[in-house]
């Protein structure tokens, strides 16, 4: 809409910053603008003040990790590297570190479970969740800003509104046209038997079997072959993305592919980090930083094998279930 070019929106309390998805709500002259972003794309929903029927806030656990913590997480290796060197100067570093980490984790769990909520906004034709309003204190500030504007546009409800709407279906009207033919399933839901998904599952299970079979092996090849498995897994995940875009793979398998790529990346950096720490230890002069990006540590390979096993089995089960449905 051309008018949107000229509208200057003001940000309302609450901003959900995810790694891929984000959300926020903005205030226009006569409406709220809900913005849901997916990395390179934004979706907009407008809720005009005159149309808003109700705003409902229900307490609910929301275990969301904001991207704001990413810089903190990135600082941890730097902190580790710096403080390992002065460990003798500050011998209580590790106990204090773990206590602080545990307290922060406990605080996050408590806030996520006890002080979180879901906020929905209802009009006659829609009932939308506002993902950016997910903490109770944010919801209070959001209501404090928005409620007066809606009341200004509509006035206030007199009496007991719950009784007044008792016998009426409110919110979006759900109409069912019996004469209409049954809706064809969406492409992404309908196309199930994905070859790429099965290849992805097999790649993960194969890699997992290899990891577990050679966990205690001291031969050089178990440190090299994981690299080839990593390439195969990345290729299979890419194929899943392509098939999903073509409507031939399910959303669940695509999520598994994303999870596998994230796990792979974390393990690569964890392995390098482990090697760096080991090399920095003055007592251990035999350790050198390996150029092998995967498979350096039995512990990490065990973790990788476990992750691959779980994700691979999940992918296999989903693919087979989807094939049966099809």
């Amino acid at each position, binding site marked *: 809409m051309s008018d949107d070019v000229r509208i200057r929106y003001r940000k309302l309390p609450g901003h959900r910053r995810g790694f891929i998805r984000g959300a926020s709500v903005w205030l226009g002259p006569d409406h709220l603008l809900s913005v849901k972003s997916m990395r390179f794309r934004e*979706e907009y929903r407008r809720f005009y003040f005159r149309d808003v029927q109700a705003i409902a806030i*229900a307490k609910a656990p929301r275990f969301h990790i904001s991207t704001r913590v990413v810089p903190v997480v990135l600082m941890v290796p730097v902190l580790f590297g710096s403080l390992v060197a002065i460990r003798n100067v500050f011998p209580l570093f590790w106990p204090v570190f773990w206590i602080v980490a545990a307290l922060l984790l406990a605080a996050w769990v408590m806030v996520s479970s006890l002080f979180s909520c879901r906020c929905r906004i209802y009009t006659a034709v829609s009932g939308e969740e506002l993902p950016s309003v997910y903490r109770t204190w944010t919801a209070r500030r959001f209501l404090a800003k928005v409620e007066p504007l809606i009341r200004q546009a509509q006035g206030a409800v007199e009496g007991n509104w719950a009784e007044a709407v008792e016998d009426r279906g*409110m919110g979006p009207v759900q109409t069912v046209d019996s004469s209409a033919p049954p809706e064809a399933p969406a492409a992404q839901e309908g196309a199930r038997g994905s070859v790429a998904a099965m290849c992805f599952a097999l790649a993960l299970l194969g890699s997992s079997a290899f990891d577990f079979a050679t966990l205690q092996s001291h031969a050089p090849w178990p440190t090299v072959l994981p690299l080839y498995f990593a390439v195969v897994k990345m290729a299979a995940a890419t194929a899943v993305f392509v098939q999903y875009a073509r409507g031939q793979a399910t959303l669940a398998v695509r999520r598994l592919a994303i999870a596998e790529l994230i796990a792979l990346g974390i393990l690569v950096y964890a392995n390098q980090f482990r090697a760096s720490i080991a090399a920095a230890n003055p007592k251990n002069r035999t350790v050198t930083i390996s150029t092998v990006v995967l498979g350096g540590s039995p512990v990490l390979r065990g973790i990788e094998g476990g992750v691959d096993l779980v994700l691979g089995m999940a992918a296999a089960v989903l693919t087979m279930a989807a094939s049966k449905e099809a």
Partner: protein
Amino acid sequence: MPLPKWELAGGDTAMCTSCGSSNTVRAFPAILKQSAAERPEAALPGDACCYDHPAKRAVAACRQCGRFVCQLCAVEFGGETWCPGCVAAGAGQAKEARSETTRTLYDSMVLLLPFGSLVFWPALILTGPATVILGVMKWKQPLSLVRRSRWRFVVGMLLGLAGSAGCVWMIIYLMTMGRTLAR
């Protein structure tokens, strides 16, 4: 999703009768109005009827195409009434009534491309120039509805240029080293 049935538990709190959860609910007068979809508007003999719903009485004519529209079909915007067909097609002035629902964020693409290439840094030799070209090509594309600055374009293109220059420098350096070693 329709509104659940609630019982007022006092003040701002409403109890969901389905799950028993306690919700904070702010209700507004629009909740008491009947929606246009529920309103019966049967056309009587002699009445003008809706183009898409012949059984319903027309309440206005589309400003673009002149078709009669009923209460359900009428799209009101800027004091004018339009039919859904003209709005969907963006025909003539009806496109003013069509709200933009999505936008592609080219500035974010330009910013993230060089950063993403750091995962496999040799790729910068390709993604660096690609970032600059993409930034120049998409410079005039509309930004996010709620974002007003093009700093992402600028930073992304500068990073792309720096990455490309770094790769070129490294290639020249390696070639020079190779010649020196050969001698």
